Each structure stands twice: as C-alpha cells, then as structure tokens.
C-alpha cells in the first residue's frame, strides 16, 4: 500500500484491488471454490439467529414505542380531557377525537369535566414517534412495548377506546418511561411545547 497517501480506513479490512495476472494455480479456480465452500459449510453448522416469533419474543427496550394506552388514574378514572394536543402534535394525523361534557353521575368514570367520548388512533397511519406522549399535559396517553397485531381488514386497524383505554383490573405499567426526568422535562416552561 502507498504509505504517503493518508487514507482513512474505518475497519482496517479494506484491500487494494489489483489487476495482476493470475498464477496458474489461481486460474484453476478449484482451490478458491473449495475455500468458498468451506466457508459456507462453516455457516451450515453455526447457531441459527432465527427467533420463533409468536412463541419466542425478543426482549424489548423499556421505552419501546409500540401500541398506545390511554391511562386511568389511581381511582380508575380516565385521565384524558380531550384537549386535542396529541392530535395536533401527531405528524401522521392518526388521532381523532370527539369531546363531551361529563354528567353528574359519571364522576367516577372521568377525572375532569371534559372527556373524550370517542378517541381513535389509526394504527396504519401512526408512525410511533411518541409525539402524542410528550404533548399530553395530563399523562393520559403513553406508548407501550406491546405490538400492534396484524389484521385482515384496514378498518380493523382503527383502534377505538375499547382497545386503547387500559382495563381497571389489568393496568399497563408505564413507570419505566415516566421517570422524574421526563416529568420535569414536561413541566419545563422554557421548552416551546409547554408554552
């Protein structure tokens, strides 16, 4: 190799290509073919990297951005107040909602006077960026490490409140993504999204 020229090598595995005439042995090709075959054979006995998906699942990161959840508060009331910030922040325009006023006898269902009577996320549009999560002022919507399953119909990908709202007896743990740092960041008035 030419030492004078300052070449940057990232892997130190680069080889200088040459057009030199092949020796008689090289022109037989068979040794090279056998060498290649020994390389492929060594892969034949290597451990397979396949993960048998539905039976075996690979571990996800704690802050994996998968299917959304609409959280309930500690008393089991919906936190969402249908302010629409999530829909506004959504770059894919996947979220729609209709707001409604809480009745007197619904105090144990909804935390504040206003709630979302209809809340839909189109999972085919969603790009799982998590902007809705960071926009939400009420800690109501979170992305979770659950995967959106496949469906046969496009309409089946529009998830309503029946799927999104967490069940009282089967709470979804989001404590890993709701760290103190995240909470202070959300309260920080100097950031544009909190103004």
């Amino acid at each position: 190799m030419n030492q004078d020229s300052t070449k940057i090598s990232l892997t130190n595995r680069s080889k200088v290509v040459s057009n030199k005439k092949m020796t008689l042995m090289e022109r037989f090709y068979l040794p090279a073919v056998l060498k290649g075959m020994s390389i492929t054979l060594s892969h034949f006995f290597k451990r397979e990297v396949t993960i048998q998906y539905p039976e075996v699942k690979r571990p996800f990161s704690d802050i994996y951005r998968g299917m959304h959840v609409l959280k309930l508060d500690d008393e089991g009331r919906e936190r969402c107040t249908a302010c629409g910030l999530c829909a506004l922040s959504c770059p894919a325009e996947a979220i729609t909602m209709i707001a409604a006023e809480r009745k007197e006898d619904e105090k144990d269902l909804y935390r504040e006077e206003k709630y979302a009577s209809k809340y839909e996320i189109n999972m085919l549009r969603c790009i799982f960026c998590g902007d809705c999560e960071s926009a939400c002022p009420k800690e109501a919507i979170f992305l979770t490490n659950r995967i959106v399953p496949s469906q046969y119909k496009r309409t089946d990908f529009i998830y309503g409140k029946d799927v999104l709202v967490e069940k009282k007896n089967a709470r979804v743990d989001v404590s890993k993504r709701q760290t103190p740092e995240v909470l202070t960041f959300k309260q920080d008035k100097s950031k544009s999204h909190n103004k």
Partner: protein
Amino acid sequence: MDIQLVLYKLILCVAILLLSLMIAMYATLAERKVAGFFQDRLGPNRAGIFGLLQPVADGMKLFFKEEFMPANADKVLYILGPSLTMLVALLTSAVIPWGGTLNIGGTEFALQVADVNVGVLYVFAIVSIGVYGIMIGGWASNNKYALMGSVRAASQMISYELAMSMSIVAIVMTTGSLSLNEIVAQQHGMHWNVFTQPIGFVVFLICAFAECNRAPFDLPECDSELIGGYHTEYSSMKLGFYLFSEYINMFISSAMISSLFFGGYDFPFMNDLGLSHNMVTILGTAALFVKITFFGFVFMWVRWTLPRFRYDQLMRFGWKGLMPWAIVNMVLTGFIHLLFKK
C-alpha cells in the same frame, strides 16, 4: 414365468416413479432447509414438524393456482414443453442399477428396470432430448424473456454435453462396456472410478451442474435478468412440472455420479460382513441412496456458495476450460490403459 417377470418389472417401474416424485418433492423442502442453514436461518418449519408437510402445501397451492396461457402462445407446444421435460426427467431412471439382485423364491431379480447394454448412450440420448422441453416451452410462450432463457439453455446444454460425454468415454475405455450395470459391477470392492479418474470426475461433476441448469450455471432461469427464464409465462402445475423436473434431474444426476464414479451400490466390506444375499442388496441400495443424498447436498451447497457465471464466461469455461481437460483425460487414460493393462 414371463408373467412373473413382467409383473416384477411393472412393480419396479411404479416404485421408482413414485420414489423419484417423492424425492423431488422433498428435495424442494431440503433445498429450502439447506439454504436456510447456510444463511444461519432455520428454513420452513411451520407446516408439520420440521416443515415436513411444506411440499404437500406447495403442491396443493400449485394445483389450485390459475392455469394461465398467454394469448399468442402456441397451445399445443405450450403444453408439450413441460410434459416433455417431465417425461425425459423420469425416463433416465430406467437404466440406473438401484442395487444388486434380490432372491425371491429361488429367482434372481435385478433392481434395475432395463439392463440396456448401451446404457450410457441411452442416458445421453435422453438427456439431450431434455433440452427440447425447455426450448419448446420457451418458444411457445411467445415472450422475449422465455425465448432468451431457452436459447441460453439450448446453447449451454449442447456445449456442456460434449465435455460430459468425453469424461465418460474415459470410463467406458477402462471398463470396456457401455452397460451401467457392468460399469458398477466392475467397481466392486472399492475399485471406485473416482480414484482412477479424478479429472474425469471433476469434469463430469461440473457438467452435471450445467446440465441440470443449477447454480452457478442457472443462466436459463436467471431470476435477476430474465425474470424466470424459459418458464416465465408458466403457472400452476405446468410450472410445477418444470420445477419438479429440475429436482428429478438433480436426483438422477446424483445417481449417475454415484454409479459412474462412486461404485453405485458398492460399499466397503460388502462381501466380508457375512450377511445374506438379500441383506447385502438392501444395504447396497441404502448405500447408493446415501451417496445420492450426499451429491444432492453438494448440488445445494454449491448453489449457496458460488455466484452465477456471466454468459460469455460460461461459454468460454465450457469450450476452453472443460473440453481440453476432458480430451487430455481421455488421451491419458488411453495411453495408460494401452501401456499397463494389456
């Protein structure tokens, strides 16, 4: 007595036919499994345990697919193409000795459908018809890709057939017979031809890859350039016939390599184990199938190792590489045979 023989041959024919089809069926699965393992994957494993029902599912799928025929295709030739390919692929198995003789009720039955005394010539005659199936199919499709593929197939098969037959000539010279049964019989006791004919073996093996249109000689199909090559316009079971015959050809080629160079149904210490005659025959057939399986594996192994040739490289390799070596091998064998054997 004659009726007994005819019945026996009929049973043998049907058995070999079914066996060839079964093996071709499971060769498709084996190919995908082997490909998977070579690429650090698992391959199909959902249909049945280890994916054993996968070929059945694939076959079912092919049967239920739409039978499509291009508008301007030659109807008769279009159907004749795959039929001929399939027929030719199955015909070769008639002369291959699948084992020694079975002694049933005092009568000796050979595990070979027809002991033709020009067996090697028969095989070459049949194999060279094989190119017609591909040619006709590609021509009748009325599609430029199909035609290109079939033209490639024709020129490739004709070029490699020459070197292939010449490597066999050396074996015929040492054996002194064209009968496959005789060639196998003379290799008994580990006198396998591969030890005396290493150049011939390598030439024959490479030509066998080319004759089967397998990688690195799969230019007739050549998915990346010609879509599917000669079977671009085929669908449903007609396509199935083409794909199936490729695997049958692979199976028969492996059987031919085993018979010509690796002693066929001969295995080490064949006559020293003190087993009964029938037992030895059955073990011999098993040994032959072990060899066939190994060469089937080599076919797949090479496919997942070597990249495809460029077309001019393919022709240059056939004519300027293999042909001279086959001739050198033939001349050398002739000299040695003349000097030392007689």
